[in-house]
Each structure stands twice: as C-alpha cells, then as structure tokens.
C-alpha cells in the first residue's frame, strides 16, 4: 500500500490508534539500550511466556525509553476501563505476577511508580500521576514526545500520535520558502550544541547557488556522558526521518543522509528499518503524498571517531575518506558534501521540526526565554539521585535541574559541580547553580550548552582528575591535522598527569593556563578550540584543588592514585575476606576471621577493597 493522499494518511492514523489503544491489555516494555542493560529483555520474555501460559490476550510491545532510566526496567500497563499504571524496577517474577493479576482484571498497585493519564476512565486515587513526580513535573516533552510511548518500528503508531500530518502540511499547504520562514520564526537553534539558528542555516543553503543540495542528520553523538541522540534514534526514528524530509523540502534537497555513530548498533538497526518502512509506504521516494517532491535517505554508519561529529569532518567521512575537518568558511551550507550546498542538523533539531511545522512557529517560540526558544534535552547522569533523560524549557536554572528533577546528590552526598558540553564544555561549581540554562549564560560562565550531556559530580570526584580525563579523551581523538590541537592537547595532558601523580609544581599551573589559551585560539576546528574548556573552567573554579595537589601533594577527593594509600584498621576488620577476594592484584592477605593487611608494594590504589568492605574498616589516607 502506498500513502498518496491525506485520506490515506488518515487510514494509517486509524490503524495506529487501534494498535495503541486496543480493547485488551496493552503492555509497553522499555527496550532501548538502557532498558536492556537493566534487564528488560528477560522481563519481556517472561511477559510473553506467561501470557501464552495463561492464554491471556494482551498486546506486549517493546517500546523505547521513557527517560526515567533510574527506574528501569519500566513496564507500562493499560487495562481498558481500569486505567494505566507504570511499574518500575520490574523483575521477571514480578512480570509474571503482574500478568496473573491482569488475567483477573486487576491492575495491582504493588511495584507501581505512577499512573498515566487516560481520559474518562476510573483510576486509583492513591497513586500519583507520572507528570506529578518531581522527576517529570518540570519537564516539557517535544523532542522526546513519543519516546517510550509507542512501538518505534510502527509507522502507524507514529502517525496516530501526530506524525506525518506536519509533512503533509509542508508539502501540500506551504511553499519551501514558507517552511524555512516558519522554522526561522520559531527561534529554533541547533541542538548539537553551537546554537546557530536553524532557519537561518536553511535559508543560506536554500539561497546558495548549486544543484544538487543535500541535507544530513548528524547522529554521531560522541560526547562521553551523553545519550540523547541515541535514545531518539532508537525510540522514535520516524520523527527524525520526517524532520529530515521537511528539511529537504525547505532547502531544496532530494537526497538526505543519516550518519549514526558506530557504537550505537541498535540505533543503526532501527533507523535503517524505519527508513525502509517509510519508503515502502511512499513517505520517502518519488512524488511524496502526490506533491511532486522526491526525497531519498541513505544511512551511513560511523566507525568510531569523535571528530566526525564536527560537520566538515562528518562530510569527509561520508565522502569515504578519513574524517578530518577543514577550515571554515566556506560553511557547508554553501559548500558541503561533494562541494554542494549542504545543511547538517543534529538529531534533536530535526526531531523538533515536525512539531514546529505541525503546531506553528508561534507556539514553539512561546516556550523558553527570549533568544532561547523551546526545549532542550539533557542526559542527567553521574553522582545524582535520579539519572535519566530530561527535556526542559530553556531558561530553567541549573539548581531546578539538579536538585529538583535530579533529586540532588547520589546517596545524599553534597553535589560539588556539574559538567555540561562533554570534552568541549566546562565544570561549573554549585555556587553557579542559580544560572539559567541558556546558550549565553553557560558560555559566559566558562562552559557550553553542548549537545546535552550533564554530568553531576560530588565531593568524591577530583576536579584535576576530571580535567585530565577529558584531555586524555581529546588527545586521543584529535585527528592530528593541525599542530595546536595535536601537540597542545598532549602538552596539557602531560602537565595534568604530572600534577595527579604528585610531581606538579606551581609553575605548571601557569603553563597549563597559557597552553590552554593558545590551543583555544589557534586550533582549526571546534574540537581543538573547545578542548581547553575543561582545564580552564576547573582552574577558574577549583584552583584550590589544583594547589592541594601541587603544594601539599594530596588529593582532597581521595581519587588520585599516586597520592592516596589504603589502610585496613585492624580493630574494625572482621576478617570476612571479601576485600582479599576482590583485590585485582592479590595485595591483601590474612587468615579467616583475623584482621587482614594490604601489601603497600603491590597495591595499585584502585579502592575496590574500600568499596566492598561491609564494616568500613578500610580508610583512604592522604585526602585531608
């Protein structure tokens, strides 16, 4: 069947509604990469088996990620007439028990996290609604609108939740120029991190001379500590495909590419299948919806190079060679893939486009703050109580994000800093948490918005070690084309290594700062220009930690291995032997039920023994 008209689309929508809201129980299991890592696969199998055993008619559906990864595996159960409840930390045994309850027509409250809003149905009074939980209350989902709520491979369900009506509006009711203007008026800025106005990029490309033109979706999400793009590609691939199709129409391109990071096999698989499905229905291909507009999409799988997230390097990679960047200008919008005008947008930017075209620019522009319209997605991770994927209006403060949505530090510990923007960003201290989350405020404070990684750090995180970690990353990922980045990142890494090993001098701090400024000024592409940010921001806000390493040769957080020692207190040790068993280098000896000792000549200071000790008998010395 081909979808040729709006009424064809309407029949697709009806099929999707019937599948989303069947007259029998529907059970959604979060099966994105994070859900699988938490054991959702076994839960899904248990549900299927038990349903067969009981002869229970139920739709058991693998869905994407709802964002509350802390609570995975998540199972969302709708029982017609009885409401809809979300269960967290579900085990296979609980899944089987849940099905036995459903067979009796009961939606149990045991193990329930929250209830979901369902129109006109009697619901339990004692459970909170999902959107009332602190984790969700401040969120505003646009990019993540469908994630975890539909079968990612079902185009029918995507259409039932509003998909492809925006493409129909663009192709049948608007001219390409009107599409570009709509995106421009929405105030949408590039969600890859740089924040360039999307509509303006499209306009430059549309007006640039040269045919053919190309549009590319940048799904080479390389920032360690970030997984927003993976989640969208895995959980709602059609939103990206529709967004890219609209971009192609607006810009005047007939060929699109989706470049996906090699480390994301499930995202590659789903986006490939979804593209094939859209082609099968004629929503990609020639004469889409009878509009005369032709558009094709090819999927390109990366091969593990961080620099390919940079747009000119990504283009070089699609062209087939090593993914090395080149100087700008000319910008890709004028001269990009094969030297032709090319728009490159981030996954989240493109997933937003259908909403802007569907609901109108004004509605989107009304969200957020002046100059920072709309919403932004963060992966809130690290030493924070609630980890997960969150989408908030721009302008929310860091404190509302970390303490409100994130619920504060892990295990009640005090939050010390937050890192945004990955290896290109900086660390901001708790004293700066009053700042609103906007492109400009984060840049002024020494970090960047970035593509959405937000890593929370506490008293047990060493900021010098974190700076060294990031420089180790950028040094390894520097493509080597320009000297400031290739040698400068190595120079900074070497100084930082001396410092964490207790060999640093006060002059090292001045040298570090000088090299950092030099690399920032002189590097060819964004990788090198931003690589010093982790160093500069930690020097700015956490200089005392650097000084403790350099002058007193101690690591206040108790992390830097050369500066700490692990000691077993004989009076507290019960001789349980756990530390001895877990020590990776066999440095611990002792008889059962007798105090154990650590051989300091063998110990590698990894702290595993400290973590496993059930009676806190092992102390990290050299911190204070």
């Amino acid at each position, binding site marked *: 069947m081909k979808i040729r008209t709006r009424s064809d689309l309407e029949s697709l929508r009806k099929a999707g509604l019937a599948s989303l809201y069947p007259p029998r129980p529907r059970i959604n299991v979060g099966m994105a*990469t*994070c859900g*699988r*890592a*938490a054991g959702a696969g076994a839960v899904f199998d248990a549900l299927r088996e038990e349903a067969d055993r009981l002869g229970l008619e139920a739709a058991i559906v693998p869905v994407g990620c709802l964002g509350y*990864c802390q609570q*995975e595996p998540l199972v969302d159960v709708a029982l017609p007439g009885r409401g809809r409840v979300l269960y967290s930390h579900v085990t296979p045994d609980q899944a089987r028990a849940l099905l036995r309850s459903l067979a009796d027509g009961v939606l149990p409250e045991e193990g329930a996290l929250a209830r979901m809003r369902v129109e006109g149905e009697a619901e339990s009074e004692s459970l909170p609604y999902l959107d009332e939980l602190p984790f969700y209350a401040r969120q505003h989902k646009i990019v993540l609108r469908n994630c975890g709520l539909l079968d990612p491979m079902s185009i029918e369900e995507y259409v039932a939740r509003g998909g492809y009506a925006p493409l129909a509006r663009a192709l049948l009711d608007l001219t390409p120029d009107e599409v570009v203007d709509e995106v421009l008026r929405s105030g949408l800025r590039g969600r890859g991190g740089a924040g360039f106005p999307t509509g303006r990029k499209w306009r430059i490309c549309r007006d640039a001379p040269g045919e053919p033109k190309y549009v590319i979706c940048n799904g080479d*999400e*390389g*920032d*360690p*500590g*970030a*997984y927003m793009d*993976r*989640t969208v590609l895995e959980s709602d691939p059609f939103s990206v495909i529709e967004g890219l199709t609209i971009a192609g129409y607006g810009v005047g391109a007939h060929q699109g590419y989706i470049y996906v990071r*090699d*480390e*994301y*096999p499930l995202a590659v698989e789903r986006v490939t299948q979804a593209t094939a499905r859209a082609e099968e229905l004629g929503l990609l291909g020639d004469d889409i919806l009878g509009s005369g507009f032709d558009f094709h999409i090819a999927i*390109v*799988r*990366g*091969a*593990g*190079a*961080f620099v390919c997230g940079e747009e000119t390097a990504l283009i070089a*990679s*699609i062209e*087939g*060679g*090593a*993914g*090395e960047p080149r100087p700008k200008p000319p910008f890709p919008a004028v001269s990009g893939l094969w030297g032709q005008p090319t728009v490159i947008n981030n996954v989240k930017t493109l997933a937003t486009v259908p909403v802007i075209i569907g609901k109108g620019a004004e509605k989107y522009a009304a969200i957020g703050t002046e100059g920072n319209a709309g919403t932004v997605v963060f*992966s809130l*991770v*690290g*030493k924070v109580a609630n*980890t*997960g994927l969150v989408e908030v209006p721009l302008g929310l403060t860091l404190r509302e994000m970390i303490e409100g949505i994130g619920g504060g530090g892990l295990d009640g510990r005090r939050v010390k800093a937050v*890192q945004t923007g*990955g290896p290109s960003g900086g660390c901001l201290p708790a004293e700066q948490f009053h700042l609103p989350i906007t492109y400009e405020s984060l840049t002024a404070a020494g970090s960047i918005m970035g593509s959405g*990684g937000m*890593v929370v*750090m506490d008293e047990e*995180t060493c900021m010098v070690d*974190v700076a060294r*970690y*990031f420089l180790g*990353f950028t040094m390894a*990922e520097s*493509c080597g084309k320009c000297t400031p980045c290739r040698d400068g990142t190595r120079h900074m890494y070497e100084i930082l290594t001396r410092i964490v090993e207790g060999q640093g001098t006060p002059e090292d701090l001045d040298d570090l700062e000088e090299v950092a400024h030099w690399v920032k000024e002189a590097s060819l592409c964004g990788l090198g220009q931003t690589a010093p940010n982790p160093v500069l921001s930690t020097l700015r806000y956490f200089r005392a930690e650097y000084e403790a390493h350099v002058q007193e040769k101690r690591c206040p957080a108790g992390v830097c291995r050369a500066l700490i020692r692990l000691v077993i207190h004989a009076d507290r040790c019960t001789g349980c032997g756990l530390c001895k068993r*877990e020590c*990776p*280098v066999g440095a611990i000896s002792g008889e059962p039920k007798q105090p154990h000792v650590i051989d300091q000549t063998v110990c*590698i200071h*990894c702290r*595993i023994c400290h*973590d*496993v000790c059930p009676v806190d008998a092992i102390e990290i010395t050299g911190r204070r």
Partner: protein
Amino acid sequence: MLARLHAINAEHGYLPAEALRQAADELHVPLSQIYGAASFYAAFSFEPRGRHTVQVCQGTACYIRGGDKILDKLESALGVRPGGTTPDRRFTLETVYCVGSCSMAPVVRVDGDTYGRLKPERVERILKRYD
C-alpha cells in the same frame, strides 16, 4: 568506502591485508587511501581478534562512577591490557568512550550484551557466560 570496510570487518572480525587489497582493486582507489581511512577509525583492527569483545565503557559517567575499577578487575581477570587479546583468542579487551548507557553507569558491553550498574565483584561471573 566506509560501508565496504564495515562489511570486511563483519566477515572476518578484523581487516586482513588481502581483503583490503581486493577492495582497493574493486573500488579503483590506491591501497594507501584505504589504509589511511581504515587506520583513522577506532572501529577497525588489522590484527585478528578474540571470539568475544569486552568493551569497558570509560565515558564520563562511567569513569566517575568507578569504571576505572571495573577495568582493573577485567585486566587482572583476563591478563591483558586494553587492546589485547587473550592467548586462547577467547576475549579481546577494549576501552570505549561511551556506549550511551550513562544512566546505568558503570557499564561493560560483551559482544552485543550490555551490563549496567556493574560492581567489580560481578565481572568474573559475566565472563563465564562466554566461551
């Protein structure tokens, strides 16, 4: 070219010299160009690899939540450093910067299976599942 390299890698588990020469002939590009691209990307190896690949995530979230300890444990359990393959070709140990499961940190991926919220104590039991 990237797609071709992925295909060779999927077939052999690494990039044998003979297969690269053949690809250069068929694509009508110099072997040096193929080698340049292949050596640029982390996903490709010129050496034969183990039957199973153990990837220890060293992304930011995993790193600050103890990913370094998981790596210590794996190094001692397998007796190889990152990049190395055990003499029996059972495992290749690798570090990767982020598999995108940061909320489950620290994470290890063995072939296609992702293990989250790991503690060093669990590492050896996981390895036993792969032979």
